[in-house]
Structures are given as C-alpha cells and as structure tokens.
C-alpha cells in the first residue's frame, strides 16, 4: 500500500514538473494568443484594445499566477475552455483522442498482421526466400514514409479503382487506407525485432532441454520461446503506443482524420494555451499509464527479470 502511495506521489510530482516546464516554454515561444483571438489580420484593434483584451484574459499576470489558475481549472476536470472555440478542453481532447485511438488501433493491427507472420516465419525457417521477403518488407517499410504510402494507396484504391474513400471518417472503410499507411512503416520495426528475439530465445539452453524431453515444437514455440521473446518487443510496443498517443499529424491531415495530432498543430499555431496544456497533461498521463502497463505485463511474462535472474 505504501509503495502504491509513494508511486502515485512521484507520478503526480513528475506530471507537475512536466506541465510546469511546458507552461513556461510555451510562453517563451513567439506568438501572441491575444492577437489571434482579436483576429488582427481582419479586424481593427488599437494597441489599447489589445492590452485590454490581454488584461481580460489574465495574460498580463505573472507566469506563476497563470499556472496556479490553470491548476484550478484541472480541479474542475474541464481543463478550462479553448481560447479559440470556447469549448471545454476536456471535451475536445476526448473527441480527438478517440479518433487517434481508432487510427492507432487500425495501424497497429495492420503492423502486427504483417510483422507477426513475417517475423516468426523468418525466425523459424532457414529458407532464404522467406528471410529475404521479411527483410524486403522491413527495409521498404522503413525507407518509405507513411504519407507517401498513403498517397500511393489513395491514387490506386480511391482515385483509379474508386473502391475506398479518399478521406474522411465514415466507419471501417475510411480507416483502411490510413491504417495501411500507418501500419506498413510500423511493421518494419517489428519484423526484425520479433525475428531476432525469437531466434535468440530458440537458442536458449532451456529450449534444447525441452526438445530433449520430447515436447512438441509447436508447444515449445507458443508456450516458451514466443513468451520469452516478447518482453523486448512489448517494450518497443509501449514506445510506439506512446508516440501514437501524441497523434499522427501528417496522416491525420492527409486523410482528414481529426485526431489529436492535428488538433495540437492548430492549437500551437493559434497559441491556444489551455488546449495545449490540457493535451500535455493528458498525454503525459496516458504515456505513464502505458509505461506502467507494459512494465507489469513484462513482469508477468518474465518473472525472472524482476528477480534479476535474466542473463
């Protein structure tokens, strides 16, 4: 119990530190939310009016006062209102995170569908054709950026064949092209990772022992080798999830998939401080939870790691 409390306390302190540093850094960036809000490019505003608006929004206050005010907004659980839309930040982030989660899930599914068979297949076989295929897919996924794959897929399946929507978010069909564009480059990371770890695990003495005891190859693969090779893959998976939680801006713009990445680019351009701060808070939280989840999963898969027995 005490360790849980200590852990929660350290996580809260870490979150405070992250949000405060971002709060300060944001204010150091060029750009003035007041000018954007007053739409100075289209509407008249005298310097006095600009200063009055700044006072009204509280941006003339010391940074610490502004930060404490933002912390008070957190307590209301609305995270304040967006400067641009006036909508509660929490509501806007919820909508966007849902879209990002959908896109990330689609991309990861595609990535695993490609990486698992190719990674496992190339680790198990000695046939050069399979190893070469895995290598080719992995190299091309790493070399070609997702948006380029997206453009090619759109040209082929949407413009030429007319089978899939060019853009938008209308159920499963509109997820196909963005998920493929996201999943293919992601797979390139996992194919060699799965292959190398599985091969290493298959060469462990305990696997030899299992073979000598007559345990079937299928059981050895699924019950022992794969399980043993998973923790490093899961760690990278955790990092991937973390980066996906931040949004996939290029693909979101290309496919008009309104995820959190695009929302943040707009918020940064418009200096929508409450929205950016809300995003930093939630994304930090999500990444910490993911990190903790992956850690616990790894412990469950390899209890020997925790005990420091792993070579």
């Amino acid at each position, binding site marked *: 119990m005490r360790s849980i409390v200590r852990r929660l306390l350290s996580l809260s302190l870490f979150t405070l530190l992250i949000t405060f540093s971002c709060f300060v850094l944001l204010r150091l*960036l*060029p*750009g*003035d939310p007041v*000018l954007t*809000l*007053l*739409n*100075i*490019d*289209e*509407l*008249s*505003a*005298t310097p006095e*009016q*600009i200063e009055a*608006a700044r006072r*009204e929004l509280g941006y003339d206050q010391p940074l610490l006062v502004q930060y404490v005010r933002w912390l008070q907004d957190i307590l209301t659980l609305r995270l304040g209102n*967006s400067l*641009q*839309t*006036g*909508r509660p930040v929490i509501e*806007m982030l919820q*909508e*966007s995170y849902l879209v990002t989660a959908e896109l990330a899930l689609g991309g990861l599914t595609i990535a695993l*569908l*490609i990486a698992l*068979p*190719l990674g*496992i*297949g190339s680790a*198990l076989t000695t046939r050069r*054709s*399979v190893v070469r*295929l895995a290598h080719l897919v992995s190299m091309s996924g790493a070399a070609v950026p997702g948006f380029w794959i997206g*453009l090619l897929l*759109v040209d082929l*399946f*949407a*413009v030429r064949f*007319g*089978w*899939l*929507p*060019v*853009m*938008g*978010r209308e159920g*499963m*069909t*509109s997820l*196909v092209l963005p998920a493929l564009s996201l999943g293919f480059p992601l797979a390139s990371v996992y194919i060699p990772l799965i292959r190398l770890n599985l091969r290493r695990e298959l060469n462990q003495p305990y696997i030899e022992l299992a073979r000598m005891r007559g345990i079937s190859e299928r059981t050895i693969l699924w019950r022992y080798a794969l399980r043993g090779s998973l923790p490093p893959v899961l760690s990278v998976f955790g990092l991937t999830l973390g980066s996906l939680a931040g949004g996939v801006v290029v693909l979101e*713009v*290309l*496919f*008009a998939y*309104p995820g959190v990445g695009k929302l943040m680019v*707009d918020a940064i351009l418009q200096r929508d401080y409450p929205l950016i701060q809300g995003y930093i808070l939630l994304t930090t939280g999500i990444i910490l939870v993911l990190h903790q989840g992956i850690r616990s999963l790894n412990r469950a898969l390899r209890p020997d790691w925790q005990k420091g027995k792993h070579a």
Partner: protein
Amino acid sequence: MSTYKTMSLIGSVFLGLTLAGCAASDKSQEQNHLTFVYNFATQSLDPHRDSSYVPLRAGVTETLVRLDDERLTVEPWLAKKWSYEGKRTWRIVLQKDVTFHNGKQLDAAAVKSSLERSIDENPGVKNALNIETIKTDGPDVLIQTKTTYPEFISELVNPNTAIIDTKASGVTKEPMGTGPFQVERFAPGTKVELKRFKSYWQERAKLDSVDFVFNEDAGARTNALRAGQADIVYRPEIESVKQLKSEGLTVQATDTFRVHQLTMNVANGPMQSLEVRRAMDALINRKQLVDHVLQGYAVQARGPFLSSFPFAPDYPQQEQKSPEEWLKQAGYTKQNGRMQKDGRPLKLTLLTYAARPDLPLIAQVIQDDAKKIGVTITIKQIDVPEEYMASNRDWDIATYSNLTAPRGDAGYYLNATYHPNGGLNFSRVADPKLTKQIETLNKTIQIEERSRLAEQIARYVDEKRYNSFLLHPSTLVAYDSKRVKGWKTEKSEYYMITNTLQVTD
C-alpha cells in the same frame, strides 16, 4: 509457418479490407446531394467564434447585411434597410417572415440578443463593432456606437456577427441560424452534414443535402474531386490544374480582397527616404511574380484595393525611373558594384514568414533583383509577423499579406495600417496629413464621399510609397461543371453553399 501461409494470411486480410471498402457508399453521386471540400477545418460551429466562418459559408447562418460580389457594395440581407439617425445611432429595419431553423421568428429582440452574444464571445467583434448600446424599437433595432463610426454597417458583413437564436442550446454543434441549410450532424474537424431548411425565408434551396467536408491537404482535396467523391473543392493543388482540366473538370480563378505587399519600416533606417522607397517599388517586377511565383493565379496590384472596388482610385501616371536612378536621387552611388552613400553600402533586412508559402519565394525574387543593382538584402524568416514587426525595429522591409477591404469598406485597412494607433501600422507611419485625412474619413457617413476620401488617401499612400503593393492572389475552385450548376466563386470568399446551388444527373 510456410511462406505460402504467411502470404495467404496477409493477402486475405488485405482483400477483406479492400472488399469492405467496395461497400462504401458514394454519397457524392446521390441525387440532389452535393459534397463540398473546404480547405480549413473547424472544431466548433459557434458562428460568433469560428474564425473559419463555416456556419456562414455552409449556408447555415446569415448576417444583417452582405457583400454584393459584382458591385462590391454592402447590400441588405436579414436587415431590409438601415438609416443613420444621428447621435451615433443606426436604425435597422428587419426582413419580415424570417424564421430560425427551430421555427422561432426572427425579431428585434432576437437580433439584439445575438449581437450582444457575438460581442461577449468574441473580443475582435467587440472592437470592430464599437457598440455602446443596442435597443429594440418595435420591430426595429437601434444601435448606438461609442464614437461616430461610419463603417459600422459594413462591419456587420463580418460572419462572426451572424444572427442566431441565442436561446437554443448546442450552439457549438448545431447553431440555429436562418440560412437555407440547417445542420443535421457535425463531426468536429471532419465535416458538417447539412439538410435543406424547408421554411427558408427566400427561395428554398435546390439541393436536398450537402456534405461540407474539411481537408487541409490540397492534394487530398484534388484527389477527392478526381475520384468523384467530391463535387466542388476549394483551393485544389495548383500543380494539378492542368490535369483537372484535361479530365474535363472546371477550374475557376477569382481575384480576392487580399494583397501581398512590401511593408516599409519608415521609422528608422534607409527606408525613411522616399527615394529609397521608390527605388524598392521600382525594383519589383510584378509580372514576374504573378507569372512565376503565383503561376499566373494572381493580378498585379497597383494599390491596396482591388480595382473593382468603388473606392479604388485611378492612379496618376508615374514618373518612370529605374531603381538605380531613384537611388542616385537619394544620394547613393555605385562603387565596386555596390550602392553606397557616405561610404556605407545599402544593406537591407527583409522579413518574411512561411505561413503564406508565396511570401518567402517573393522575398527571394526581390533579394535577387536587388543584388543585380548592387543592394544587399538579407532575408530573415520570422514566425509571427504581427508580433515581430510590432515589437522589433531591426528590419527595413517585410513581405506581408493583408485583407484590405474584407467587409466592403476601406476604413478598416486605412485605419489599421496608416493611422498612428492602427493595430497593423508596422511601418510606424505617423504622417499628420495622412492621419487627418483618415480621421476625416472616420467622420464621414455618406458613402460616395467616403469613397472619394478613401481614393484620396490611397493616392497619397501611393505617392509616399509607405508600402509597395505587389499582387492580389486568386482563389482557385475546381468542380465538375457537368454536374454542378449555380456555383460562383465569390471574391469575398464568404458565401459558398447557397440556395441556388444545384446538381444535375
């Protein structure tokens, strides 16, 4: 697992997903339905806050007055007529039999409440409208401004002053406007689904429904049109124009109210000299900029306003001198290939920014042309021009882009740019004669007289070369003209989905 099995698994998944895609409904080809793809996205449909103006552009909301695209004058809309009553007070007479999408009647109280909300919600609108009080007088609305404010009526063209039923809930997702279309569903950042408003006060919309889709990628918008998944796309990819035309699609280019200009810092440095400013102006090859940087999709600018505006002046014949001649007149001589004065070479700092991709290219062309006459220009890339130019004086010239008369009146631009208190007076112009002219304009109510004064001011600014005007960029719209009828690209870019728009199959 064998290679065959691996490939089969990947193949089946891919095929499954593709077949699923085949089932996608092609809504753009539905009868009497139109899909419009716009180049900005919005997270909120609140008409008083949304800076993309989607509710007005999508035909959901309407303002009291609108801009006529032919004459570029302010015309009645929800306001039938208006008059100046003296004592800074305007009487607005409303149209009869106008209802909001929820069936409620539009009346003076509703207009008052809506305008008050726009002021409360949007500090920019609060400044621009400059309202002291709003009162109802039977069926009319009486508005008193804080100061004498002749351009008040034109400020009501602003889409953020749209009239909505403020009592209705859910304004960010379903504003209750009076336009020909009402919101059926809004997916923030993705699209607005619209349906015809059956009780529209003017002729009912010809379309049954419209999808107003957002996509900020020009290539994706172009692809949507080519794939037949969109009927009209706003700002397609310039590079694809030829291809679109070859595929039988129509691409319309229309001049806009925007001007790309060279802002001069007249507060310090070499640009304080009129001759140096004239030299820079003479240096600019506007035709080259239009043809090569904007690929022909722009018109050369002579002044800040599009020539079709009633207040755009006829400029007097200019003294034809080369940039070198102007610089010589300013006391510069060419030594070792460099323009110098008192032993100091002419070196200028030119600001530019990437938010408008044409501007850095224009800056490079100017830098190159200046080098040919012995003037060194250093280009400095900045992030936020308004903030940088307002608080720094370490620059001489800047490429900048302005909307000069977005609501059909010259007052906004002239005040903002040339009045010492103007929010966009980055040149730091403080010319007593010019200030007096602007203040006279600010007290002049009569429209013809305002136009005459605005012309006079624009001519004076031209004479003094406080800024140098480069070009008016065009807006491109691509659509399938065999299917879409009644589309018109408006110079104001305000009115897009209208009751006259239709599709034929």
